[in-house]
């Protein structure tokens, strides 16, 4: 995989965007936490300071400045003194009592020389190499010229801040790393699928029309997309195949009748001696042309049907009425050709379809049966339903179609040896097959023992409400 491409991937960009967003949100959260922690710690510190101030001032009120100094001495004294007076020592506490001249009366800090109020003072390190201490405290006047300052080192505050900020940095780094890795992995997978689709498309552009996008069988959105694209490609290639078949049919199979027509005209020119002969030859030539035109019409019709666009205008069709009408239509013809046409049609059976095409389909089937059976044959039309299917049968007791020819008779221009002597162009059953396919019907050729049994199985539709 080329590394630059991945950064252009949508997934990667999304991952980066989310990482940034996450960082910003975490930053805001950390800021809030810092603010709250800082506030809490400061107020704890100030409360402790105020407690110390109160103790010292109590001492002063009881026994004057001397006692105040004594209290401070105890507060900041050695552990031994603290133990004696049952005090706990606070190593962070800095207390100083100073007079108006800035002279320290007692304390563990230099004179702060400040007015009453809350403030911070900076204490230079006592030892070389140690840090500055930042002392937050309050200064109060005990009495005229004597002031008290109590403060505490803010080191713990700073340390907490640093710990929180450090934690934030680690989390941020982790997030970025995770986002980058996730983005790369997802982007790679995304790219791999897109590549598979793009490769297939490129292959098709290059002329390998049978290429399809490999599915992974997971049923995810990629598989759905792949399936949809593959179905589209199948449809397009079926249409292409249809077109190619059509062109080759026209190129090859129309040669025969055209040659016949040409020969006939040539013969007429060479041999006709009288106007009558010439006129007769011309009539035959016109018949040949009509035959050619009907082949064209049939081919066009097949290709129209195979393109599948008629399916959009399907409506509810009463198949019972349709088959019955076909029976009525062909009964006289069958009688004239000395065939017995009978029917057994179930009432009020509906399917979704195209009435005109269905009419043509049954017309072709009945005409086929009439043409390809000897005189005195029986032709039987039947329509029956099961729970969900409609089965229409055209059965005859003629010579039938041998098993190995049953697929072939559906091909365009294919004519069985026995049928070649009769009129027809070998397109009737091709059209039937195309119309059946358009209607999602299954066409089966079976042995009627003797004869042929053509079976069409449709999906049933509920009768329309009237």
């Amino acid at each position, binding site marked *: 995989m080329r590394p630059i491409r991945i950064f252009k991937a949508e997934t990667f960009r999304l991952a980066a965007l989310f990482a940034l967003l996450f960082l910003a949100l975490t930053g805001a959260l950390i800021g809030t936490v810092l603010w709250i922690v800082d506030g809490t710690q400061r107020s704890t510190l100030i409360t402790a300071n105020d407690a110390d101030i109160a103790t010292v001032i109590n001492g002063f009120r009881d026994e004057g400045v001397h006692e105040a100094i004594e209290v401070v001495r105890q507060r900041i004294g050695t552990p031994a003194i603290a133990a004696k007076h049952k005090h706990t020592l606070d190593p962070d506490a800095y207390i100083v009592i100073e007079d108006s001249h800035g002279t320290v009366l007692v304390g563990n800090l230099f004179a702060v020389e400040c007015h009453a109020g809350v403030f911070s003072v900076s204490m230079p390190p006592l030892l070389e190499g140690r840090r500055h201490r930042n002392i937050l405290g309050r200064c109060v006047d005990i009495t005229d010229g004597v002031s008290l300052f109590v403060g505490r080192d803010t080191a713990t505050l700073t340390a907490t801040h640093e710990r929180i900020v450090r934690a934030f940095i680690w989390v941020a780094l982790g997030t970025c790393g995770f986002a980058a890795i996730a983005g790369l992995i997802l982007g790679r997978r995304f790219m791999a699928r897109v590549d598979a689709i793009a490769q297939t498309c490129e292959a098709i552009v290059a002329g390998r029309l049978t290429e399809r996008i490999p599915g992974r069988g997971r049923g995810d959105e990629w598989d759905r997309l792949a399936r949809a694209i593959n179905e589209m490609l199948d449809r397009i290639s079926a249409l292409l195949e249809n077109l190619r078949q059509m062109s080759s049919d026209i190129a090859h199979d129309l040669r025969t009748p055209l040659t016949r027509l040409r020969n006939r005209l040539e013969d007429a020119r060479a041999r006709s001696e009288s106007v009558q002969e010439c006129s007769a030859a011309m009539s035959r030539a016109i018949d040949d042309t009509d035959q050619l035109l009907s082949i064209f019409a049939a081919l066009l019709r097949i290709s129209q049907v195979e393109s599948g666009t008629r399916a959009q*205008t399907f409506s509810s069709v009463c198949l019972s009425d349709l088959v019955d009408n076909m029976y009525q239509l062909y009964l006289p013809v069958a009688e004239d050709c000395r065939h017995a046409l009978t029917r057994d049609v179930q009432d009020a059976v509906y399917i979704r379809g195209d009435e005109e095409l269905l009419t*043509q389909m049954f*017309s072709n089937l009945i005409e086929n049966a009439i043409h390809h059976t000897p005189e005195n044959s029986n032709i039987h039309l039947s329509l029956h339903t099961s729970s969900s299917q409609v089965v229409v049968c055209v059965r005859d007791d003629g010579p039938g179609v041998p098993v190995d020819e049953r697929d072939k008779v559906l091909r365009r221009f294919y004519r069985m040896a026995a049928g070649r002597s009769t009129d027809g162009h070998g397109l009737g059953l091709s059209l039937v097959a195309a119309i059946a396919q358009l209607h999602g019907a299954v066409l089966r050729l079976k042995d009627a023992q003797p004869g042929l049994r053509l079976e069409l199985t449709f999906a049933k539709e509920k009768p329309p409400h009237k």
Partner: protein
Amino acid sequence: MRLLLVEDDVELAESLVERFREEGHDVVHVDNGLQGLTVAMRDDFDGIIMDRMLPGMDGLELVKAIRREKSTPIIYLTTMSGIDDRVQGLEAGSDDYLTKPFAFAELLARVRVMTRRSVTPSPTLCAGSIEMDLVQRSVKRRGQAIELLPQEFLLLQYLLRNANRAVTRKMLLENVWGIHFDPHTSVVESHISRLRARLNAGCDIDAIQTVRGIGYRLLAPN
């Protein structure tokens, strides 16, 4: 008859004009849609024959434009043979639709039938000695009731409506059975021969005349 022909194929147009004149009809020919519209609006014709694909103005549009003003019968001549094409053409307002190539006799028969004066709908149809009651669905010839099968009844009804005019096999297939393709058996001939046998029973005059190379004509001698 005075006809308007809108056709851009000059060779075909000239031959049609010539053939119609031989039949005693006057034909005005224009070769594009816009001119066709102008002439159709300006003059009165008994019928209009037009190509579906025309320069200047598409045939469908032309029919719609004419139909807003006039009810002159219109027949399409077209190479567009798809099922949808025919439906579209008829929906636009044309009265008939004939696919090229065609036999002149077919066009002539259709134009004659199309341009017949529309008669007020009546519950009975009469031609000579034949009477048809559309409500009772009964047929009589010289007062004698004749039993007909449903499809024979429809066939006779169409013939009666066009009595004394030749109708082609194709017209019968389309109008009686709604079949728009060419069957490879003699469907029409078989039905006609049965109808003829029923009508002629006990009569010496053949009611249905066969017109060679064209089709049939119901005779209604006064």
